[in-house]
């Protein structure tokens, strides 16, 4: 709708598809930025399914098990919750490059950022994501130890 109402601002310099993609990307990023809350995720916040998924991931069986649709949904939901702990820029870069196998140039095209900025963002986002998952796994291990 934003594209439709701003149609007059399209100067015809790039492709229409690129213009629409950029509008959609910026709109989504602004939406995520406006929701400033970035919750911390701990093992206690996980649902039973998510907890089981983590266990199987740790047991190295996730590769086979994540094929099932239900498991896939659980993983996708968990991924969404982990991503919510990151900044919108990190979410975008990680989802595109690591999730959808997009290239750095693809991200540049969609966002208008410089190539070096995307690379640095991706590097830092990977670290933040890995740290968040690491914390989740270690808190889960602590809970299991406490229960035992």
């Amino acid at each position, binding site marked *: 709708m934003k594209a439709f109402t701003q149609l007059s601002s399209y100067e015809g310099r790039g492709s229409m598809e690129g213009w629409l993609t950029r509008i959609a990307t910026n709109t989504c990023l602004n939406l995520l930025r406006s929701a400033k809350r970035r919750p911390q995720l701990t093992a206690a916040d996980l649902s039973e399914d998510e907890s089981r998924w983590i266990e199987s991931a740790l047991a190295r069986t*996730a590769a086979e098990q994540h094929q099932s649709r239900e498991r896939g*949904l659980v993983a*996708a939901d968990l991924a*969404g919750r*982990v991503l919510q702990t990151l900044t919108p820029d990190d979410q975008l870069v990680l989802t595109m490059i*690591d*999730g959808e196998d997009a290239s750095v140039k693809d991200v540049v095209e969609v966002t208008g950022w410089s190539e070096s900025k995307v690379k640095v963002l991706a590097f830092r986002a990977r670290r933040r994501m890995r*740290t968040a*998952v690491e914390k989740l*796994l270690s808190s889960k291990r602590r809970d299991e130890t406490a229960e035992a």
Partner: protein
Amino acid sequence: MRNEHVISILESKPLGELNENELAQIHAHSPICESCRQAYEAAQVSAILLKERAAEIFEPSPFFQTRVLAALRERRSENESWAWSRLWRTAGGLASSMVATVATLAILTFVVPGTPSVEPQGSTVNAYSAEAVVLNENATSDDQLSNNDVFATLYETDDDVVK
């Protein structure tokens, strides 16, 4: 090489894009370094999570189209009402200026003192009107006939004709 930490390798690119050398380095180092082992484990889980997230197909809600069209209609009607109000404001301004002009002209014409009147007082009575004749009945000049003269002349003539 075996003693080098591999965390930087894990962060340099997506896990699926690591080459054989890099993977071999990670596999050689992870068993002897707890922090790198945990980092690798977390990186693997992250990679799976991100792939699952990307594989998820997002479908718009069945009401999406309806909501978008409704929002468009709402915005359009807002624009229309805005146009009407703008037109109304413009017309109101025009009408106000016209009223102000008329009022100014009226004040200048009737109220402002010292304005010379166009016609002298009493000139509204025409010298040849009926009122003038009646009012000036007694003020007859020398070269004018009196009423009696006129009547006498008239009746004399009539009598002559009858005779």
